[in-house]
């Protein structure tokens, strides 16, 4: 397929996409009943009347907890495949079980130091 044919396909794709959007919106506009009321302009919040303004403050501590959570989430992702294969390892495999064990505990130890750091810095207490 030549260069132009590839770009031509893309161009047709874009044009059809735009047309489809225009057709749907036009049909919608023609078919729908139009009954405006001020109620319809209010913010929709699960059928409950909206209170306050759109800006809200979130405690910065959530961020740090989320951060720690992600780190240990990654640890879990590495732990699962490791746990699945470590039972199959023995002296004949390319990786010895001791190597796998030491490697994983080095990894966990590194993360634990991070946790100890966060703890010591008082990040884990809420107040």
């Amino acid at each position, binding site marked *: 397929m030549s260069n132009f044919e590839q770009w031509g396909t893309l161009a047709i794709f874009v044009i059809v996409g735009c047309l489809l959007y225009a057709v749907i919106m036009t049909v919608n506009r023609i078919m729908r009943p139009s009954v405006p009321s001020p109620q319809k302009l209010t913010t929709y919040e699960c059928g409950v009347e909206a209170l306050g303004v759109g800006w809200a403050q979130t405690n910065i501590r959530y961020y740090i907890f989320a951060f720690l959570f992600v780190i240990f989430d990654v640890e879990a992702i590495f732990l699962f495949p490791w746990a699945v294969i470590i039972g199959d390892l023995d002296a004949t495999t*390319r*990786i010895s079980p001791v190597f796998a064990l030491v490697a994983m505990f080095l990894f966990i130890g*590194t993360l634990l*130091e991070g946790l*100890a*750091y966060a703890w*010591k810095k008082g990040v884990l207490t809420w107040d």
Partner: protein
Amino acid sequence: MQIDFIAILPEIILTVTALLVLAADLALRGDAKQFVNPLAGLGTVAAIIATVALWGSERVTFGTMYVVDDFAVLFKLLFLGTLLAILAISWRYIAEHRFFQGEYYFLLLTSFIGMLLMPSSRDLIMLFIALETVSVPAFVMVGMRKRDLYSSESALKFFLLGVLAAALMLFGMSMVYGFAGTTDLVGIAAAISGETASVPLLLGSVMLVLVGFGFKISAVPFHFWAPDTYSGAPMPVAAMLAVASKAAGFAGLVVVAFIAFEPVADVWGPMLGVLAVLTMTVGNLIALQQRDLIRLLAYSSVAQAGYILIPFGLARTGPGAAVVNAAAIEAVVFYLIAYAVMNVGAFAVAIAVERRTGLRSIADYAGLSGRSPLLAMGMTVFLLSLGGAPLTVGLWAKFAILEAIAVDITLFGIVLAGFLVVNSVIAFFYYLKVVRTVWMDEAPAGLPQLQPGFNLSAVVVVLMVGTLVLGVLPGLVTDFSSVISIVAAG
């Protein structure tokens, strides 16, 4: 998978040191916290020994992702030497300014681990990880003066532009992968050279990858972050960004350009050559206007990046290209070593002057010769060397570039050489302006004698002697830098 632990021993040592530093910071209290600095220094010395032991060997590990050859070892020694100097000039500065000391040294070591990975990487993913390991701790270190709005601003600028460059580079890498079907650099070169006609999309993605490194080395269209970031960051961090981080960017650029993209060197060579001209001219012209010494050094480092880019402009492909490319790489490596010696020295003097007083405009350097003859001598030697005066290593660094141009003279090479010479003359104007202020202007009344302390003085003396000795005997470095060859290997 068989891992060659000897090959990655320097990185392992630095990692262990970084973790120990963090633990020591948690255990120590108050003034004792500053002793994490010698701990980090010991780890660095151990890593240097482990690296020196690797000289002359060719080790490949992690599949073919990680190669330790003489090229990599030379770069690693450059980084570790810079780290040692930066640790020495940080000690008092960081301890006195009540920074988060443990975190600072931890982040510094982490960033240098990334740099050690860079020249050994032979895989796009490895390169990207190395580059991010260099950058991410640097973002935090720049914002280390937490209460200072100026520092926060510079950290934010650095972060946003850095992330943008990383995203562009990743985008380019993904397209290169889509084209070559491999992330291995040698494999990419094979895939590209198999193509008869050049594909615009491939060339575009090559450019995107190079842009990512262009940001790291602050080449001109991507240099805007550098002056603001250097002047807002704590000064040892500015020194690290100006020297080590830039050298890491060049290491990555050499690896990716001369190994993976070697078959399209006809395209990126002239482009980087034009960037070199722009970078040195713009850097030098703006440096003329600076009143703040750190901003002057920042723009001077932009201009220096331009000089170092010149050999990239000579790169070519096809028969007989290997000789030219090898000479270009040699010039880059030698210039980077010379640049590290003189620029860390200049920053060391600036730290000594700024440390207690906060004085940093060029006018404040008036009468430095009376306040501290050693620092004045040091500043003079470093600035003259940055300019490229005889008897200093700076002259040989520029000579190395001209030598690379002379390997196979082309019109473009002559134009580049012309810009190099003209720019060196421009640069001398602002370097000499500072030197004149240091030696000839009267010191403002009431300033005490400077007491830089043992570590800082030692660094200034060692680097000053290094600048002068290498200025007389450049062979001490070129004997080693001339035997490296990644072109033949790649």
